[in-house]
């Protein structure tokens, strides 16, 4: 079961995720991100992964697709607070270099 919270910080939207991000829950997360992007049209979308214990390839695919769709609408996507196991997955797939990753949510919101 995935716990997702969204909130606005000025022109930025923050999506915080807790739980295991795998095939079973990607549809739920995709809907939330899609709706946030469509309604708030944020200049910056921060995805806080602090509470994520595990992410599989479907989850990674979802984040990549989210980045691409935010890019297309002229915005940016920043990832914040990757726990060690998630960081490892990102390293292995070299996604660490594909995303802008920040160690705190504040940095991600400020993030140049």
């Amino acid at each position: 079961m995935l716990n997702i919270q969204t909130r606005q910080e000025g022109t930025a939207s923050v999506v915080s995720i807790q739980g295991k991000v795998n095939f079973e829950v990607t549809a739920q997360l995709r809907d939330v991100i899609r709706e946030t992007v469509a309604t708030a049209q944020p200049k910056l979308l921060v995805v806080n992964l602090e509470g994520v214990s595990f992410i599989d390839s479907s989850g990674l695919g979802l984040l990549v697709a989210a980045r691409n769709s935010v890019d297309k609408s002229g915005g940016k996507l920043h990832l914040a607070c990757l726990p060690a196991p998630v960081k490892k997955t990102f390293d292995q797939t070299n996604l660490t270099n594909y995303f802008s990753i920040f160690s705190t949510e504040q940095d991600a919101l400020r993030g140049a």
Partner: protein
Amino acid sequence: MAKGAVLVVDDEAPIRDILSFYLKRAGYQVLTASNGAEALAEMDRSRPDLIISDLRMPEMPGDELCKRVKSDAATRDIYFIILSALDGTASRIGGLSLGADDMIPKPFHAQEVLAKVDSTFRLIEMQKEIKRQNKELTAFQQRVQEEMSLAAALQMGLLPKLPGEAPGCRYTHRYLPAEGIGGDIYAILPLPDGCTAMMIADVSGHGVTAALISAMVKTSFENQVRLGGEPLSWAHGMNEDLCRSTLAEQFATAWLGRLDPAANRIRYVVAGHCAPLRIVGGSKGGLQRSEVMRGKGFMLGLDEQLPFMEQEAEFLPGDRLVLYTDGLVEVERTDRSMLEEAGLRRICAELPVGAEAAADAVIAQARAFNQPAPFVDDVTLVVLDRMG
């Protein structure tokens, strides 16, 4: 058009007439019989949707008729309403226990019967519709299952034939898709120059979509290998192919390698995939040391512009190569731990001689570690022994 056919069974002609009159006026087709035996004869000629029958009749009474109708599979679904002069709860329960669907006490108002017939036909229509939909669903489900098992067989056909042989090497695989059909694929191709091209890939997601893309990945790999070049150019070519032909969230992790037996080396590209293990002298069995063929690279199909990097590793006669997909090592146990690469290396520290026996041992020990959690993702394991 008639709304439906009602068979009225009563030994008293005035009752048959009055019911016929009302039912016909309401648009029903009406059949009549004066006792159970006549009713059965009538039913041989035409098939009513509903029977309204008196209980006490000569020749064959209503309870006997009801029993016969309800015990015959061909007529069981016909609605049966008993008309009974025996008012009171006892006879009502008696009638229903015969298998009748409803009862109308005598004396009755024709309007009351008509209302009951109307509501019964609404039920009949609903049941017919449900049956029709159920039949369609069952047929659809059966077709899907047949197609899935056909697709699964076809997918198995995409894998190399076993026992696998490449120049100076013997290999085998274990392929365990999560849903009968999966997103894992691998290929081993001997090259004209005596080298061997190898690929293992894991398409994001499961099921039919992932399986289709896995077939695409294999074709793309074969095309790239045919063009010549090194794993680095294969990775770029496959990445372009996948970027062009897949949807936003679909990509594949892959490991691509080229074994040069003359140089005793493997050149390879890691595209977001689990790094394979080289087991030094592993084909001889016993206690062995493993090395991880590390490398960093993006998954295939993310973005056409992304760079890949080629690495090189030694691979000597007698060495063993273990290729796998993450489903093998990423099963979360109840204590939340997973086998991971470190655990697989522990298993690979001592494996038997022969690729077949080694593959069995890896799967069995990974399962034992995962207990009681079964594999949840597609699992592929390839063990390749270089003859010493």
